[in-house]
């Protein structure tokens, strides 16, 4: 008894498994390479830590899960059968301590009776204390590999694909279908999860020469077809959208071009599923030991990889296919000890093997890397053989996952093969080949000892667990799945579902198709999180939006402030200044001399046409049509429910042309709102509303010297407050709006963004010459709070009416604006509503975002929307919303932030702390 081995050269590719240096041949999967090195024990099972080997040769492998790669590149729970060895590969076994051969956790196997099906549920429904005790233990004892802690150094690409026909599976059926479509002039994409075409032909060359596959693929390519190897169709979605996961490098391998994997979104007019079939294991006691393998897998290792997984093999089957395995093993020089066929008489040629009919394995015993003994019931008696390998075949399950994911799809039950076959589907999809038909099988006798007869190897679910779940009252297949964890985890029951379903149907006393099916969910095989995240993994999926003057600011090393997708300078600290120091210096410069800041991100819409004013009087709740050319005014916008959702300014640039500005954060929402009103509600308007947010860069110049600075820049009379003039700075055309957000006389200079740099430089030179400086958002916030200007997202939070914000007097008396109907709702004029107030501290600093209470323990009556300070004099002030706030000026309250333990006594005042008469705007 020698276990798995390979004849001839050991190979030249160096890799390690659990630290042990090993050699592999080119084209080996890790599973093949391990077997070639005589390693049969590769994993410990999920729950009981039972020794496990390699059962399959494909993606359905339930046992042989490894962690491959190191650092951020490491990938846990990778199937050794779906992993091609590369030079320097580092693979490790999982769920064992201290090592695979001596695993402390395997003691659990001895105590298996303490961890029956539904263990988690039973414990969970017990006392909470018990659960707390067990949880620590369970989380360490049961499980798969560890997720890496380090960031993945590789990229994950995403790509769109389009085709007339997508063929999934490059076996003989898939290749033929792809060629036929390509020859018919169709745009074809053919995908294959393996690294080679038609791996089944390598396993069974008697069907077709494997060279046929290469020749066919060459024809498909020559006709313009696309063939993607190492690519799995993982999900089937609406309207024939299929997601593919493509390996550009093997798991854990450093990719050649930086991209490790690619997620494809392929939209196909028609989909052909040539996904083949998966072999089923047989259920008998200790059918999970290293050395018990699927029959076709054994044949694959022999024929494709030149690895003979055992020297004395027992074949156990209920169908003809396993006889091919017997022949392959004999051809490879192994001894076929016996063929155990469940059927009364052999169905095909037996080629001289010792065949026992009506025979079924009973149990196995094993050594570390292979079996020792197999016992079987043959007819009425028990027979034992010395054998190191058992190749089993319980029939075949067509791979219908994608068919079922396609939605609105049916399965037909085929009694002869005891399998579900793809039926009708709502989407344009057909299944062909072994995915659409399976060979007949004989009976599958139930095991005599069901407790150790595993059906779901990955989750350690035995037929006994199915029986237990039934005995405890779990009747539906969905309950069975959740109670036993059957068909969960990485293999999603590829090899276990049918056995469980058969047992459940038997218990229910119904035919298998009447027992019901669990949902086939994407992905077909596991995909890594990185693949789904794509490049989003690094920056939450969004590109940074850069200001036109980004580099100009960056050169001054500002403190940046994220604002939606934008980044804006928060302050420009000089030397060792802190953010607060810098912001206060900048704000004081605006109050005492002059400052300039970048306001490019403001939403801007240019509205032109005979109905421009009419559209604006729908969008804005203030009058617009009465504005004279060259004048502007403050405005605000209502949602249909009457609540204020944005504010800004509107300017009449010409007879039929206006500029509307609104908040940065609400820019996209405002664009949609304007478009809805114009395109959907009022398509008859003669108006063009163009989003010019990015066309113009904006520079605000504010302060007592702003007029002087601007006059020097434009060389002419500066516009009065709330007026606009076209001008030029250094020969570059600009639009000057005399508007203020700081409380000082101020101007906004708008310039085509591509020409903004010289204008900014000219402004900066002039501002500096007048003792001023740049200011950022923090200073802007100080200034606007002190002046009592509103900010969208702060005071304007979508919950207040114009009246609540003391803007009621500006409403268009004629009505007609969006939200006018909503504003008539009685609830919006009742007492008790939140209203805008100012707050000044009697002691301490008003905490940002604190709640306003009358006494500790009392409910909140309002909250602080923005906290700042008196720029020149110091002293903590804030804006806030307070129930019936207009009538409460003078009242003392407490601003409390219990989560931060901050508190301040405040007095309610009018929301204006600076130049309440607006003297500073007058020329």
């Amino acid at each position, binding site marked *: 008894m020698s276990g798995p081995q390979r004849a001839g050269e050991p190979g030249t590719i160096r890799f390690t498994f659990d630290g042990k240096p090993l050699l592999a041949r080119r084209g080996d999967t890790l599973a093949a390479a391990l077997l070639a090195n005589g390693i049969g024990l590769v994993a410990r099972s999920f729950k009981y830590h039972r020794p496990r080997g390699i059962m399959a040769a494909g993606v359905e492998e339930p046992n042989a899960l490894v962690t491959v790669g190191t650092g951020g590149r490491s990938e846990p729970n990778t199937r050794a059968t779906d992993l091609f060895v590369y030079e320097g590969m580092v693979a490790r076994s999982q769920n064992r301590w201290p090592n695979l051969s001596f695993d402390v956790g395997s003691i659990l196997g001895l105590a298996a009776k303490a961890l029956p099906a539904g263990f988690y549920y039973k414990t969970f429904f017990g006392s909470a204390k018990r659960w707390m005790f067990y949880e620590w233990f369970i989380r360490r004892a049961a499980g798969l590999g560890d997720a890496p802690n380090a960031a993945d150094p590789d990229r994950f690409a995403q790509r769109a694909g389009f085709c007339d026909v997508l063929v999934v599976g490059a076996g003989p059926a898939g290749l033929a279908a792809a060629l036929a479509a390509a020859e018919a002039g169709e745009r074809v994409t053919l995908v294959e999860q393996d690294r080679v075409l038609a791996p089944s032909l390598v396993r069974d060359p008697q069907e077709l020469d494997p060279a046929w596959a290469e020749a066919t693929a060459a024809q498909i390519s020559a006709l313009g077809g696309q063939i993607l190897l190492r690519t799995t169709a993982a999900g089937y979605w609406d309207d024939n959208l299929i997601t593919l996961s493509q390996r550009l490098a093997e798991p854990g391998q450093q990719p050649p071009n930086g991209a490790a994997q690619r997620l494809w979104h392929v939209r196909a007019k028609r989909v052909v599923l040539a996904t083949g079939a998966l072999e089923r294991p047989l259920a008998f006691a200790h059918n999970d030991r290293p050395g018990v393998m699927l029959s076709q897998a054994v044949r694959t290792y022999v024929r494709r990889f030149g690895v003979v997984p055992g020297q004395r093999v027992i074949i156990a089957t209920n169908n003809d296919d396993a006889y091919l395995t017997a022949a392959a093993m004999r051809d490879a020089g192994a001894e076929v000890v016996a063929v155990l066929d469940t059927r009364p008489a052999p169905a095909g040629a037996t080629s001289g093997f010792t065949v026992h009919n009506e025979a079924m394995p009973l149990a196995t015993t094993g050594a570390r890397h292979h079996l020792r003994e197999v016992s079987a019931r043959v007819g009425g008696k028990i027979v034992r053989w010395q054998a190191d390998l058992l190749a089993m075949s319980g029939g075949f399950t067509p791979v219908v996952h994608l068919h079922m994911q396609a939605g609105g799809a049916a399965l037909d039950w085929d009694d002869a093969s005891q399998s579900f076959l793809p039926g009708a589907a709502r989407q344009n999809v057909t299944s062909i080949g072994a995915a659409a038909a399976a060979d007949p099988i004989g009976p599958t006798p139930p095991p005599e000892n069901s407790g150790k007869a595993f059906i779901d190897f990955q989750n350690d679910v035995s037929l006994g667990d199915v029986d237990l779940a039934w005995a405890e009252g779990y009747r539906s297949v969905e309950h069975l799945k959740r109670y036993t964890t059957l068909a969960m985890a990485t293999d999603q029951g590829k090899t276990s579902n049918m056995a469980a379903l058969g047992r459940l149907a038997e218990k229910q006393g119904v035919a298998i198709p009447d027992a019901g099916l669990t949902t086939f969910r994407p992905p077909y095989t596991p995909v890594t999180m990185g693949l789904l995240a794509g490049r989003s993994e690094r920056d939450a999926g969004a*590109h940074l939006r850069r200001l036109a003057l980004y580099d100009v600011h960056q050169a001054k090393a500002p403190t940046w402030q994220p604002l939606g997708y934008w980044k804006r300078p928060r302050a420009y600290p000089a030397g060792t200044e802190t953010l607060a120091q810098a912001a206060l210096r900048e704000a004081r410069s605006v109050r005492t001399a002059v400052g300039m800041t970048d306001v490019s991100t403001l939403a801007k819409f240019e509205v*032109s046409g005979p109905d421009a004013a009419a559209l604006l009087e729908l969008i804005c709740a203030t009058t617009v049509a009465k504005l004279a050319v060259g004048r502007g005014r403050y405005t605000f916008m209502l949602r249909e429910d009457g609540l204020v959702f944005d504010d800004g300014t509107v300017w009449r640039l010409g007879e039929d042309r206006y500029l509307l500005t609104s908040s940065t954060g609400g820019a996209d929402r405002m664009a949609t709102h304007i478009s809805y009103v114009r395109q959907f509600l009022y398509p008859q308007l003669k*108006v063009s509303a163009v989003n010019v947010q990015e*066309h113009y*860069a904006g520079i605000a110049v504010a302060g007592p010297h702003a007029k002087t600075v601007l006059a020097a820049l434009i060389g002419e009379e500066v516009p009065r407050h709330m007026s606009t003039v076209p001008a030029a700075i250094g020969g570059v055309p600009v639009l000057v709006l005399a508007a203020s957000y700081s409380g000082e006389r101020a101007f906004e200079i708008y310039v085509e963004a591509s020409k903004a740099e010289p204008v900014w430089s000219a402004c900066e030179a002039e501002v500096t010459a007048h003792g001023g400086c740049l200011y950022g958002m923090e200073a802007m916030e100080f200034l606007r709070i002190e002046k009592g200007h509103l900010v969208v997202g702060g005071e304007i939070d979508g919950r207040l009416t114009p009246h609540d914000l003391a803007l009621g007097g500006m409403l268009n008396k004629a009505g007609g604006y969006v939200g006018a109907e909503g504003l008539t709702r009685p609830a919006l004029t009742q007492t008790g509503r939140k209203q805008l107030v100012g707050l000044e501290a009697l002691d301490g600093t008003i905490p940002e975002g604190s709640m306003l209470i009358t006494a500790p323990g009392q409910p909140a009556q309002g909250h602080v929307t923005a906290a700042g300070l008196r720029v020149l004099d110091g002293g903590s002030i804030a804006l806030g919303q307070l129930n019936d706030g207009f009538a409460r000026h003078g009242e003392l309250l407490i601003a409390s932030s219990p989560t931060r333990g901050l508190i301040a006594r405040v007095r309610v005042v009018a929301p204006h702390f600076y130049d309440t008469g607006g003297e500073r705007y007058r020329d």
Partner: protein
Amino acid sequence: MTDIAITQLPAAPLNVLEIWSNPLAVLDRFEKAFGPSLPPLGSSLQLPGRLLIRYEPAVWLVEGETIGLAEILGSDGSLTAIGGGLVRVRLSGAGWRSLLMEGGVFDAESKAFAPGCSAATVIDHVNVRLLVESDDACLAYVPLSYARGMIHFWTIAAKSLD
């Protein structure tokens, strides 16, 4: 590696031409002035000194000269400058179609997307307008704020197209 070059072009005069009424009359005036028709959605028209690309039902992007257009529009439409907000990026070389599939959802590999064709779509979450210049080049109009990010995205993606 697939042959591809990503080039940011200098700023160009770009205007939105929108028609809000009597489109057939505008079309008539346009044809009288220039000869050919205003291009339909998904295509473009190159005239001496100006290029008209239609991306929206009632909107054309005019690159270059606008002389005469205001008269043709009369009171049925208007022009609005937007050139500061768009960056023109030329993707050239045989691989441009593959590159546009990266992070995209639009079939840039379709034979129907031929020289002169235009399309507005989303690439890597950014709205981008495309104009096929030739079999070897495609122009992308990218919002200014996203331009550097998109050029970076394309530069990286171009390294692993195959």
